[in-house]
């Protein structure tokens, strides 16, 4: 009845041989390139392997990374030492501020930057971040014999001054107070800190920080190698953090500064 309308069926079909050829070419391409992929546009891995690994380190990010007496310390510093051994490379530590280091990293003048970086950092779109190698949590430390609390509302919680803990406690209707007689106070602090002080970290979890390392943008082979290394290290992570937290505790001075209740 409507033969006069041109049938679109034949003109629009995708012919079998066409699809087949394309798929075959793709497959060959993938298999050939597979051994090489992914590559580093800026050859980071090739330059580091058997050579020098330039690691940017922020000066004061205990227990993750800090500099003391010209030596690099911290969880991430230790990871870098192990990684360098794996890559048969010498580490050159480049201390600096986070901003300077990351800008340098962005321009491919460093190979890795460490310093307690979080995945939520605003830099994440400008440089490459590894997958999180550890998640630290801001939790509550309970004094001896006290049961877990469900809500912080109306309670006095000891916190370190000028840390996110102050605001987080306030948001849950708690009263942030100075850190004094630890044994009898509820304390809000990162889980590794609580463990160092002898608390068992308990709910509620006030914040989660996903720790990452930074690599130059687009250096995908380098990133893959580093991520594989970090994945292999995941069993050692807790032990490493514990030992480094202890080291940083001994090295640091007491933080107790009075925090006004109604500030």
């Amino acid at each position: 009845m409507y033969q006069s309308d041109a049938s679109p069926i034949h003109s629009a079909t995708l012919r079998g041989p066409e699809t087949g050829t394309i798929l075959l070419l793709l497959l060959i391409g993938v298999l050939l390139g597979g051994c090489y992929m992914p590559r580093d546009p800026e050859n980071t891995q090739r330059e580091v392997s058997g050579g020098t690994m330039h690691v940017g380190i922020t000066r004061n990010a205990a227990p993750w990374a800090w500099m003391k007496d010209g030596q690099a310390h911290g969880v991430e510093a230790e990871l870098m030492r192990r990684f360098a051994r794996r890559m048969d490379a010498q580490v050159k530590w480049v201390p600096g501020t986070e901003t300077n280091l990351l800008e340098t990293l962005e321009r491919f003048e460093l190979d890795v930057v460490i310093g307690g970086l979080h995945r939520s950092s605003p830099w994440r779109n400008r440089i490459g971040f590894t997958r999180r190698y550890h998640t630290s949590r801001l939790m509550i430390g309970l004094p001896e014999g006290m049961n877990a609390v469900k809500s912080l509302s109306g309670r006095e919680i000891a916190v370190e001054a000028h840390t996110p803990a102050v605001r987080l406690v306030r948001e849950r209707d708690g009263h942030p107070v100075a850190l004094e007689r630890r044994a009898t106070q509820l304390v809000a602090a990162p889980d590794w800190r609580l463990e160092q002080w002898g608390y068992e970290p308990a709910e509620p979890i006030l914040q989660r920080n996903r720790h990452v390392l930074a690599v130059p943008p687009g250096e995908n082979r380098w990133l893959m190698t580093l991520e594989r290394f970090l994945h292999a290290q995941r069993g050692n992570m807790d032990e490493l953090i514990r030992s480094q937290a202890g080291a940083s505790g001994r090295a640091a001075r007491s933080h107790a500064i009075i925090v006004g209740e109604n500030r």
Partner: protein
Amino acid sequence: MSLLTRRLELPRNLTGELRKARLLEWISIVYIITVVVLMYLVLGSSQAMKAAWLDNFISLVPPIAVLVGLHLRTRAPSLRFPYGYHRAVSIAFQVASVALCVVGLYLIIDSSMKLIEAKHPTIGTMVLFGEPIWLGWLMLPVLAYVGIPAALLGRAKFGPAYYLHNKPLVADAHMEKADWMTALAAALGILGIGLGFWWADSVAALVIGLDILKDGVRHLKDGVFDLMDRRPQTFDGKQPADLPDRVAERLRQLDWVKHVEVRMREAGQVFFGEAFIIPMDDHAPLERIAEASRCADEVDWRMHDLVIQLTTSFGEPHSMHQRLTAERAGTE
């Protein structure tokens, strides 16, 4: 003739096609949802993957529009909508076309900026079965899943679309079939990144964006013209449809008809129109109108509502009729 246009009844032999069309569209919807979810998991920071994901996200709208349209066309017209619901699908398609245009433009601008800024996309690993695997390797099979069934589904839809004269279904079939090209472009982008060509990703996204924009503009134009009551076109949109002429011919065969002019417009799957007839004399006008109406209906199932108007002249003497005849003869 009544105040309300009549309810559309599909010829019996087409109910099978209708069922097939419905089934294919439902399959499409489920399939696209799985695609969107799967792609979201392996997106990474690849521009090309983002582009392909957006493309697939928007392509949820056409099947939904078609299904809604197929459902609405069976609804009896009401006093509120005396012309029926045939146009509802065209409007849904307008919306989808605008969305396509916006997405296309966004992708073009975004990818161009990334190229200008020389952004190197970072694509890391994802842990699968306890082992970190490069995301690029995961993206490729996902893209195969995105491209191949889409091409097959699109191809399958052309048949029912043609027989049902359902333009949104055709447009949907076209777009779905083209999805394999989107998937291929994204795959080439990923391979490019894997080989160290950081710009391959943005270039692929740019190409995909251009394709989406092209689709969007084409369907937008089509939809707008349809809603402007353009003269019906053939299925591929290249020529005027011959249905108005066939109806006019059929009416001319009636012995009491001296002259007849027909104008029509498309509304969804069917045609509405008016026929102006100059009869030989003014004998039995009511019966004649009824007869003309019946003859017009018999020409084609798509001839849905033709208002017959008996008249003494076609407006200004000579000019209109001459012009139309001359236009047809191709002398103008």
